């Protein structure tokens, strides 16, 4: 009996490993999933869970023309802080966003999350290397 329980457990474990091997996750989907946790920790308090921000205070990320047309500048803002006046969906924002102290891989993940959420779509995955290459 004991033996059969052990072999059953072994079977379950090995089959799940096999299953995992057979269907590796898409790297973009994995990055987006890690990015959602970073978003909740570092971004959501101002940009809100629906990415809509607060009009005239915190710019929206959801369907944001600025974000989707200026991905490199947006990465630079997350990495080094954002203090320049920007126009987002026709509204001017001149607030200050401090740098969050995130590692390059975390910035890549959270950028993949925001550029693929709330109606945004960006199939070109942002990589850690691309974030590392962006200088002040």
């Amino acid at each position: 009996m004991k033996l059969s329980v052990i072999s059953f457990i072994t079977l379950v474990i090995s089959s799940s490993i096999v299953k995992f091997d057979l269907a590796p996750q898409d790297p973009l989907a994995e990055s987006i999933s890690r990015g959602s946790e970073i978003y909740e920790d570092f971004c959501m308090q101002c940009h809100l869970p629906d990415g809509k921000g607060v009009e005239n205070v915190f710019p929206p990320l959801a369907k944001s023309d600025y974000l989707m047309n200026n991905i490199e500048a947006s990465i630079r803002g997350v990495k080094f802080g954002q203090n320049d006046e920007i126009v987002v969906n026709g509204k001017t924002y001149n607030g200050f966003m401090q740098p969050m102290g995130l590692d390059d891989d975390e910035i890549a993940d959270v950028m993949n999350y925001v550029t693929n959420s709330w109606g945004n779509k960006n199939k070109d995955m942002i990589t850690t290397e691309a974030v590392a290459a962006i200088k002040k």
Partner: protein
Amino acid sequence: MKNFISTLFFLTITLVSCAQPAESEIKADAPETMNYELEVVIPELTNPWGMVFLPDDSILFTEKSGSLFLFQDGLKTVIEDLPEIYVRGQGGLLDVELHPRYKENGWIYLSYASPEGKEEGGHTAIMRAKLNGNKLTNKELLYKAVPNTKKGQHWGSRIEFDHAGYLYFSIGERGQRDVNPQDITKDGGKIYRLFDDGRIPDDNPFVDINNAKKAIYSYGHRNPQGLVIHPETGVLWEHEHGPKGGDEINIIEKGKNYGWPVISYGVNYSGTKFTDITEKEGMEQPVFYWTPSIAPCGMTFVTSDKYPEWKGDLLVGSLKFKYLERLVLQDNKVIKREKLFENTQDVRNVRQAPDGYIYFSMEGTGIVKIIPKKQ
């Protein structure tokens, strides 16, 4: 049947009204008249988190990104030999305060996000040190919260001394809402009290409880970024950030539980609820709550003769709405609120200096002084 319908009606109303958090009872308006204006004292700062005034009228201030500056005779000097600072999320170099007898002993107190410890990440630390030229010397680590975490939120970090010379500081719950604030054996979500040299007073409320963090003075807090001693009563006042709604002003009493997250006037950022109750036996009610949140940071009581209309009032910075809030109090209740200096920048800190003037600091701007309007 009629009874059933009326019950249903009542239930519907109750449910609908509960889904909308109750707004603050007193609303903030623009002042009818304004006799003051702003003078820029230190321009071009990024995030001036803490500031304090030295006896020679120079200003010692922090930048959250990890620098300490002395501003003297119009010049900014970088202070060297700081402790290692963990800059992440809302953490970095935070508050700065002087010992009440600074003139005699030269002690400066700093709060900051520290990576010290075994785990990855960081937690709030309190250090005292002395200023020798442009260097920090005689560094003594007085408190370091544990365990470190890579979470970005809620470091708290205001430092304040009371009239008897006790050292108080706040540490936020570090993004661990359901773990830290209600557990006195864990750091975070607490106000702490120590002697000026870091020793724990024998009459701290939890010194006799096994495994408790003996430095705790009160608990059940979320993220307190305002601490000030009432100039007349000598009692500690605090404010803390709520989530969406439910920012609070509290009067801090020894050993009391301020309820987070069991009771709250706020809801999750998404609008869903995390609690159904706003009050409970054994948990303190706030003096005032802000819904919608203003994101309060820094506070001071006005005692100076420079601002006769504001004397006795409380000033609080709003990080979110970019103004300085004036709260008029009567019998420890807020009876009037005003938005001063609207459309400036996110207000990080506000203090009354020994010269009687009120200074406040703004993110992406600098430190300004409130002066009477020139005729």
